[in-house]
């Protein structure tokens, strides 16, 4: 109960900050439009039957790139004023921090997807089945984004807490999120091809999401502040790993 209240409070604070400037939402939405324009330019001329293959890729690659941009921005804000450390020191359950951050990133990503999916339907005639089954599409996008955000929040936070080079985020994020994105690809393609087993893919997607969310929430504290030991790496005298 306390956890839920803390999540709600932190989330409200995040949202209040976002409403003040709309920075993350606007940049992500704009970036989705850019991605869409790029895909329209590069793949728009494909025949409809090839679009069945191209649309899932376009959708989830866009989500992956928009996602990494969003996560970077969400945590950059914390880093600029070093508030993440303050939050970690404060009397807040670490899981609440994880879930509130993940929820913010998820909301932004869903907004971006709300731009992306209709845009893809307009650009690619092959994507029409998405419009025919809006509920399925919404559930699929939601589940896919949850999986992505569950992994992404953990590592973006880890990088923001350290003296991070943010370039590393895409290095970590993209290999690790490939399986989720592949599940999404399969589900999307099943939808577009009107595959009879398409609904089963949603169940699998949900199962993967559960695994990733549990793992992300469980690892959040040890990765950010260190497990049993005190201080973690920050306390270690830094002699560069030249000898290693």
């Amino acid at each position, binding site marked *: 109960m306390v956890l839920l209240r803390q999540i709600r409070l932190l989330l409200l604070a995040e949202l209040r900050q976002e409403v003040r400037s709309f920075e993350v939402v606007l940049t992500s939405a704009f970036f989705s439009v850019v991605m869409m324009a790029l895909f329209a330019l590069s793949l728009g001329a494909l025949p409809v039957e090839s679009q069945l293959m191209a649309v899932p890729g376009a959708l989830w690659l866009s989500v992956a790139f928009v996602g990494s941009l969003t996560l970077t921005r969400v945590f950059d804000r914390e880093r600029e004023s070093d508030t993440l450390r303050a939050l970690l020191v404060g009397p807040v359950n670490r899981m609440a921090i994880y879930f509130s951050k993940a929820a913010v990133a998820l909301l932004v990503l869903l907004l971006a997807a709300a731009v992306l999916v209709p845009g893809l339907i307009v650009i690619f005639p092959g994507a029409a089945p998405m419009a025919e089954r809006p509920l399925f599409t919404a559930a699929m996008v939601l589940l896919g984004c949850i999986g992505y955000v569950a*992994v992404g929040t*953990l*590592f973006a936070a*880890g*990088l923001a*807490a*350290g*003296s*991070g*080079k943010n370039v*590393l985020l895409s*290095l*970590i994020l993209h*290999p*690790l999120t*490939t*399986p*989720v994105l*592949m*599940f999404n*690809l*399969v589900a999307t*393609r*099943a939808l577009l*091809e009107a*595959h009879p087993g398409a609904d089963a*893919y949603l169940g*699998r997607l949900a199962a*993967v999401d559960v*695994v990733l969310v549990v*793992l992300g929430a469980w*690892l959040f504290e*040890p*990765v*950010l502040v*260190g*497990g*049993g*030991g005190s201080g*973690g*790496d*920050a306390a*270690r*005298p*830094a*002699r560069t*790993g030249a*000898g*290693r």
Partner: protein
Amino acid sequence: MIRRFLPDGMLLAAALIFPYSVARIFLDTPIERTMGTAFKIFFFHVPMGWLTMLMAVICGVAAAIELRRRSTTASAVALAAAEIGFVCGLGVLLTGPIWGNATWGKPWTGDARQMSTALLWLVIAAYLLIRHYGPSGSRRLAAGLAIFGAVDVPIIYYAVKLWKTTHPTTEVVGSLPPALWAAFWPGLGAILLCTFGLMGLRIRQLVLAEQLDEAWVRVTDREATDGTDLS
């Protein structure tokens, strides 16, 4: 005493078994009917594939221990396992296309096993990059990555398999006759001994490097305090 010479012993044993297993593979094993001589790549290709996955799992487990209690040994095991996994994965990814080219006529078919090994290898490579080039304090981050990588092993495999269901599948190896398996085990044993021996050496080296670092820090600390005493 045993622990001290265990890696060397393993390497020595591997050196003895390797010639035997190669002789078994090339002289005692009949040639596979559909794939011909190219099939002999199987005997080292498949163990390396298994080892890549095994090393990813070892790396993840060691990283979890490293996160729980800051242990130098666990950290060293994780890094060593990742390095060996990297080498084995590279071996699999390079010999796979050679085999594929010989039997299927094209090097990369996007077969589920190929794809999942490649993805796993990317995760291992990312781990090594973070460990070597990450900012100070990114060790825990790398550990998180390793744990996710280990958990991803089955997910990756399953995802790729699903992904392939919409494509025609190619059967790589069906069930093998016992004669081939009999030649397979010595090779597997040799390669296991060799990799674990190398891993033992590398772990020892990493622990030593860590201790040396600490000794350096202590020496420089002492000099610093000496200096302040003098002034």
